[in-house]
């Protein structure tokens, strides 16, 4: 469990502190990364706010965040807790956890930006834990303006 928690700590650090270019290294080559709302999930609609079905697509997202998008400077801060391993195989773990993300836009006070649940599959690959699947489920259907970074 400590090793799994360390993966999440690294995940949050790469988004919150950077460099975001290294964030894709936490995923396997054919990993799935999605941010979905509870509403779409409940209605059986497949739409995701971010949807990547390869590490290459995750790299594109990381590159766009840093180099392509015009965004007002801001920082996210992840708090992740309540880890549970719901299923365990050989070198594979199904993990759920709660997350909260605070957003601080330059010149403005910090606000609660998003909260929800992770439903992930983690595998050990060449001795290293990586996300095979990372599904981020947001409680709110609505986003406060823009979703700039991964959650």
């Amino acid at each position, binding site marked *: 469990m400590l090793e799994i928690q360390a993966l999440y700590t690294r995940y949050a650090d790469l988004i919150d502190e950077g460099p975001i270019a290294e964030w894709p290294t936490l995923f396997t080559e054919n990993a799935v990364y999605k941010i979905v709302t509870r509403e779409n999930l409940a209605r059986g609609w497949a*739409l995701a706010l971010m*949807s990547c079905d*390869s590490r290459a697509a995750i790299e594109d997202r990381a590159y766009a965040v840093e*180099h392509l998008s015009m965004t007002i400077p801001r920082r996210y801060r992840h708090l992740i807790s309540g880890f549970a391993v719901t299923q365990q195989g050989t070198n594979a773990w199904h993990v759920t956890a709660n997350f909260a993300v605070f957003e601080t836009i330059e010149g403005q006070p910090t606000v609660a930006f998003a909260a929800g649940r992770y439903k992930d599959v983690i595998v050990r690959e060449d001795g290293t834990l990586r996300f095979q699947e990372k599904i981020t489920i947001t409680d709110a*259907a609505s986003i406060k*303006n*823009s979703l700039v970074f991964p959650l």
Partner: protein
Amino acid sequence: MTTRQWTLNGTHRVPYWVYTDQGIYDREQKEVFPRSWNYVGLEPEIPNPGDFKRTHVGETSVIVVRGKEGEIHVLKNQCAHRGLEVCRQDYGTTRAFQCPYHQWTYRLDGDLTGVPFIKGVGGHGGMPDDFERKDHGLTKLKVATRHGAIFATEADEIEPLEDYLGEKMLKLFDRVFNGKPLRIVGVSRQRIPANWKLMFENIKDPYHASLLHVFLVTFGLFRADNPSRTEMDKTGRHSALVSQRSANPLAANAATQEMASFKEKLELHDKRLLDIVKEFPDPATVVMQTIWPNLIVQQQANTLATRQIVPAGPDAFDLNWTFFGYADDDEAMQTRRLRHANLMGPAGFVSLDDSEVMDLAQRGIHVDAERAAVVEMGGRGSEDHDHIVTETAIRAFYGYYREVMGL
């Protein structure tokens, strides 16, 4: 009532107070939204009798519900008794709407059926003898549908939806809403801290798209040198941008030279993000249509979506996206639409730039609301253009807006 006067001639200058003034906003809630055909959803969101969704017409909370015979009702979400919102969910399925306070109960068509203690209890109380349930239903809006899209209006007298769209806009509307059954891909919602009109102007302004959106330009999805046109209906209230993707998207040329952030060498790691399949008979690869007063219809690559604008005070609006495809999409197309949806929505590779820019616009406008925007790209008139280096559609929009608002 506001005392603001639009003193400038024409609409090539737009006074900033149209985005900030509470009096102007209040007048819009009376003159713009209730008197127009407002988009409220797509039919497959409520496929079966009793299915409902909660949404808005202007600021007004409404319920869009499918009745027993499959017909669609749009009802104001306000109990006839004490005014409570009778619907407390964004969506669901029900046999009736019941107010929690005194349990007044309404049928799916909005008629009042149940009033507890209507005849009193043990000879005490009860409603007056002349109280008629039929006089106290939920307020019903007029409904029109077109190939799966649902519109509603509070206006008693209004032209049919098809005439309201006009021949030119109807043709483009029917290009996507072509009568084939629709399939919902999903919804996303965002609260944008800007005046609702800035959303329309963003889509009516293709000039920005070829500069701001590095992603669009770099991958040739939308560029100033692409074959394009900008056109309006005869009132100027609706408009469309129609464009065709570059054959050789990555090459730098005169159109990209002035774009500081153009990245010639850029290549996607996962090229499936842009594995665009032609699905409409004409050569256009982008059609962005704005329908007065609250709808954007988007086709960019293989992502189709409606965007519903819901004003929330002068300084904010909700943008509700409904991504859709067709019921007969095969699995490959369903996957493709999901991938292409990365371009759009609150985290879209493209639309993210827009929500950020609108935030900056609203803040900047407040710096000095007595100044005016300069809207002169492509001239000062509001005629159709066969290019996109123009703000003509914004000028046309404000021509109609001034008429409606008496400004």
